[in-house]
């Protein structure tokens, strides 16, 4: 049965988009398939793995659990919108330096979740980091290096300078 599509307005990574979406289109599908921003990954599509984490109006959400029509008018930031002019953020640099990236499929989600964490608390402790990132799964099981990478940025910012 055909569903009427609705055109929704989204600001994604600083650009305005009008996207025609069916009522059951998720924000994840809209980003990946309509805007072809494939940095946001489809892992489980059920809200269990965190691979599709994006910022919606500054808050980290699972894009597979948000209907595109419910995102109408919101401001979205995806992994593609974090680094400016191809320059990695300190957190992304830290992921690379600490070997926190293996197959890389979970990395965009982890980076988005950790970015939100560091925005809320620039200097989180280990326990806060692990709790915040508990919604992100890494099938390579590289959790410790990921936590190390986030922790290093936390102590960096408390020291007041980028490495």
């Amino acid at each position: 049965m055909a569903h009427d599509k609705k055109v929704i307005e989204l600001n994604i990574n600083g650009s305005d988009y009008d996207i025609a979406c069916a009522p059951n289109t998720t924000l994840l599908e809209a980003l990946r398939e309509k805007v072809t921003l494939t940095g946001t990954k489809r892992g489980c599509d059920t809200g269990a793995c965190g691979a599709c984490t994006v910022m919606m109006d500054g808050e980290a959400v699972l894009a597979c659990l948000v209907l595109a029509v419910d995102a109408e008018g919101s401001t979205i930031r995806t992994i593609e919108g974090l680094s400016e002019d191809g320059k990695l953020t300190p957190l992304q640099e830290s992921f690379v330096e600490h070997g926190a990236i293996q197959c890389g499929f979970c990395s965009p989600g982890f980076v988005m979740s950790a970015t939100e964490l560091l925005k809320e608390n620039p200097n989180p402790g280990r326990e806060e980091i692990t709790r915040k990132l508990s919604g992100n799964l890494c099938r390579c099981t590289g959790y410790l290096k990921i936590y190390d990478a986030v922790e290093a940025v936390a102590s960096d910012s408390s020291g007041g300078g980028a490495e």
Partner: protein
Amino acid sequence: MKVLNTVGRRVPMHDAAAKATGQAQFTDDLLQPGVLWGKRRR
């Protein structure tokens, strides 16, 4: 003994930056709108 260039050193993963920024393409990322998923042969 020859000096080793790689063994014992930390070597940055060549595609880590691309993966950290979402630029790396996985198989599921190669699908574009209008892509042909399959065709039935009778």
